[in-house]
């Protein structure tokens, strides 16, 4: 899938103005900043903004709901709720500031030290962090408050100290990432001392995550501060605090539930604003580091051009099992659709082996996954039909497709080890598959599983059944993966480069196994490969793909004897064991173009040594050049008549 990762835009490093620009484009961030700004200003200016003295009691107006006189009502002693909130906010916001200052002032240098120095410094600091994380913060602060009664500053400083590990870890890992960068090494060589390097070159690159953490920590600090204030541990009861006001409200919950609303809502909204700001900052920072901020679209099959091919569905015509018509796959990104596979058409007959060959990035695997409807996120089949026994696989429901997978079509991937679930034994997974497909007892399934493992030529099937994926060699894992695919007795097996990741000797064994299994079961096989040896070894027919299209298609003997497309010819000539003895081994100049940069005419033309004017203007159709032989080359007559002459 390297074609896809090429498309990810790498943003510039997070400079401050860049970050601010991304932030102000985010409405959530704007709302959060505005809210926090207004609340802070109103609270700081409480002596001016508050309509009443927060301590003034008016026993005639006890527990009033919102009125013109008291906008947010009054409490149990008739004090104005709004005024108390504004005065109380000064203490709460100051506490948040204290906590954030302590946590960053100490956590950032410690994180820089751990990440930059490494070694024992890192180990000691990380261990320290782990230990602190295991402590319930509130209990430690309670110990502090037992010694220093009602001292909120002490409580918040302690809370900041306990919060250090969170920021330490973030700064440490950010520093580790930057430390090995070239320009840091260059700074070291140029003779700057460590302090200068950290200050000038590392800190500017890690402060993004720091402000994210600081914002999130502010949310926790406020949550904490209002908690201890609620418990009445930080102030005497008459002093207004946000948490304390919720506490007062709780005593009147039966009489005037409204009283809970102003203080509780204000606390929750302020915490929410800090949290949302932190998330928005994170998005902005991550975007700056080149991550994908947008959720990738789901992989869904949608139908666009039904009329691309009007060929009637086949009704069990003898021999034909799969019929692919004009299959097209595109990426789905905010930038727009980019075709990856473009109008692929081929048939597969019962019991035959069809090879699909081409360089990496030509769309072979994507074609296979589209047939199986297992395209990764971000890719969609946007057109064409895939007929299986009269049904178009692209338009049947997901549920009916589930019924076909494994029992009609099966799949073997090129990464044997990572294609097995690491957390269950081979036997467990195989038994589950067999029981799903064959509805037999667990006991029966177990013996079938062993038989299946023996069928894929594993030496010790019992031992393998009890093994986990990480205990198997690559060859063993691929045999197991084949056994998984066979568990539902499929009629068509699609094997995507099943031998690429394996040793040469093991490759031959796996190919031999596939050939034998095919003979025994009569299933059809689609083999995706970039190796002509594999094609020659077991395929009956071959399809050559280039830049998302089929460029040539014919019987295997015909293709080796009489290739009729310059790309096929180039591929064959570059293959060591097939080139004419004594002739120079030639490679095709250039690389497979990425899907966004396909040429408008013949997509191979930029690399083709026979290129002429007519090649580059218009798209080239796939034309029949002989019985069962097709080529996508307009100059096929000139080039190959000359070549054979």
């Amino acid at each position: 899938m390297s074609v896809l990762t090429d498309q990810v835009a790498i943003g510039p490093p997070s400079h401050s103005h860049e970050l601010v620009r991304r932030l102000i484009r985010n409405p959530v961030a704007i709302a959060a900043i505005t809210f926090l700004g207004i609340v802070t200003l109103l609270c700081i200016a409480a002596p001016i903004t508050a309509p009443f003295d927060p301590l003034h009691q008016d026993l005639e107006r006890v527990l009033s709901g919102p009125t013109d006189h008291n906008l947010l009502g009054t409490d149990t002693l008739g004090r104005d709720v709004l005024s108390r909130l504004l005065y109380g906010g000064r203490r709460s916001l100051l506490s948040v500031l204290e906590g954030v200052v302590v946590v960053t002032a100490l956590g950032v240098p410690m994180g820089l030290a751990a990440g930059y120095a490494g070694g024992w410094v890192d180990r000691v600091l990380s261990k320290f962090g782990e230990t602190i994380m295991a402590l319930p913060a509130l209990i430690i602060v309670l110990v502090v408050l037992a010694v220093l009664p009602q001292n909120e500053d002490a409580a918040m400083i302690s809370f900041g100290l306990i919060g250090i590990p969170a920021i330490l870890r973030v700064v440490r890992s950010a520093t580790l990432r930057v430390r090995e960068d070239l320009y840091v090494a260059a700074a070291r060589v140029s003779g700057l001392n460590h302090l200068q390097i950290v200050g000038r070159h590392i800190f500017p690159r890690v402060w993004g995550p720091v402000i994210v953490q600081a914002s999130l920590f502010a949310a926790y600090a406020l949550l904490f501060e209002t908690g201890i204030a609620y418990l009445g541990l930080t102030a005497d009861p008459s002093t207004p605090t946000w948490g304390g006001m919720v506490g007062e409200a709780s005593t009147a919950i039966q009489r005037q539930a409204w009283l809970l609303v102003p203080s509780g809502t204000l606390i929750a909204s302020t915490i929410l604003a800090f949290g949302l700001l932190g998330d928005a900052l994170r998005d902005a920072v991550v975007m700056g580091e080149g991550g994908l901020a947008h959720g990738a679209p789901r992989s869904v099959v949608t139908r666009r051009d039904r009329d691309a091919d009007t060929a009637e569905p086949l009704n069990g015509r003898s021999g034909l099992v799969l019929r692919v018509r004009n299959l097209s796959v595109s990426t789905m990104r905010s930038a727009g659709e980019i075709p990856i596979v473009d109008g692929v058409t081929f048939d597969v007959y019962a019991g035959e082996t069809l090879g699909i060959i081409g360089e990496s990035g030509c769309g072979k695997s994507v074609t296979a996954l589209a047939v199986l409807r297992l395209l990764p996120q971000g890719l969609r089949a946007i057109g064409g039909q895939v007929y299986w026994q009269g049904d178009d696989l692209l338009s049947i429901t997901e549920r009916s497709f589930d019924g076909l997978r494994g029992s009609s079509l099966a799949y073997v991937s090129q990464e044997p080890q990572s294609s097995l679930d690491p957390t269950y034994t081979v036997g467990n997974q195989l038994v589950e598959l067999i029981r799903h497909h064959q509805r037999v007892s667990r006991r029966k399934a177990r013996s079938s599983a062993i038989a299946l493992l023996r069928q894929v030529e594993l030496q010790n099937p019992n031992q393998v059944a009890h093994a986990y994926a990480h205990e198997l060699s690559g060859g063993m894992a691929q045999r197991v993966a084949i056994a998984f695919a066979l568990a539902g007795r499929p009629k068509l097996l699609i094997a995507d480069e099943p031998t690429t990741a394996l040793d040469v000797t093991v490759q031959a064994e796996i190919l031999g196994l596939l050939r034998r299994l095919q003979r025994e079961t009569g299933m059809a096989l689609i083999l995706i490969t970039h190796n002509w040896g594999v094609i020659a070894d077991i395929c009956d027919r071959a399809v050559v793909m280039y830049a998302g299209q089929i460029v040539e298609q014919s019987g295997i003997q015909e293709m080796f004897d009489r290739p009729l497309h310059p790309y096929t010819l180039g591929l064959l000539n570059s293959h060591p064991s097939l080139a004419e003895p004594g002739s120079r081994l030639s490679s095709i100049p250039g690389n497979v173009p990425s899907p966004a940069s396909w040429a408008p005419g013949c997509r191979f033309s930029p690399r083709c040594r026979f290129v002429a004017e007519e090649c580059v203007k218009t798209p080239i159709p796939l034309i029949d050049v002989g019985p069962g032989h097709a080529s996508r080359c307009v100059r096929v007559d000139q080039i190959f008549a000359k070549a054979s002459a």
Partner: protein
Amino acid sequence: MFVPESPALLRIVGNRLLLSVPLLLIVSALTFLLEALIPGDIARTIVGPQATPEQYLQLKHSLGLDQPLFTRYQQWLENVVHGDFGTSLFNHEPVTTLLNGRLSVTLSLVVGSTLLAAIVGVLLGIAGALRADIAGTAVDALSMVGLAIPNFFLGLILIALFAVAIPLFPATGYVPFDESPLDWARSLVLPVVALATPGIAVVAKQTRDSMRAVLERPFIRTLRAAGLPRRSIIFKHALRSASAPVVTVLGLIFVASLGGTVVVESVFAMPGLGGLAVQATTQHDLPLIQGVAVYFTALVVVVNLLIDLAYGWLDPRVRVE
């Protein structure tokens, strides 16, 4: 590879227990030394400003504050090892008696809320992973709100709604299990929900992210291509691979909910360790609050051990490493 399973697990348990010794030592030292480290005089705080110098010195002596710090710590530690956390300064009962009498309340709350957070959070997270559009956004919004509402406020809202307006559950109090299992459960519902809500949010978010990553892994494609039903792929295969970070988060949630019980027990007037801690704080009952801190840390140690075992059970590779 030839290490059989059980000795490996034993080794994990052994390692964790060994690591927990320094943790307990550090916490006990911290809680003990905080009194010395913090500027302020606990004896003066306790006797109050009106006390005579004799009363002050007498209290200092009875607290052992007139002895060198290290000697005091050594003595305290020795006693703690023998299960003696000293005597409460306020009501003169042994600290262990006070703590043990209230442990079951706090355990019911903390275990109940961690389980609730695990179950609801995982289910929400899976929904969020499978449906990127609706449920995914819902999980995001919910987790933000769940984290932002302080548990004391949420607790009071729950009381106002489900105890006062619609009297389904008792507003406050705790019924011991052996008195009436049904009333025990009813008395726990509201406090457990209040305590679990932030945890639900965190678990849902972690589960969603980790499930999304796992669902993109090749083995999921293999199992889907081999025909396994969706149900099994999600709940048996993907969930297990996705669960290690979720378990880590559950450990942190457990620690956080120990702190949370202090507040929630106060909201619901439940006689647990948290309430005791608040009481000890306002009464400057140092031996009692030290005892609570050590108890809480011991609980954290036990939970970390369970989490290590869970890692081993979830991922076979951990067992052989």
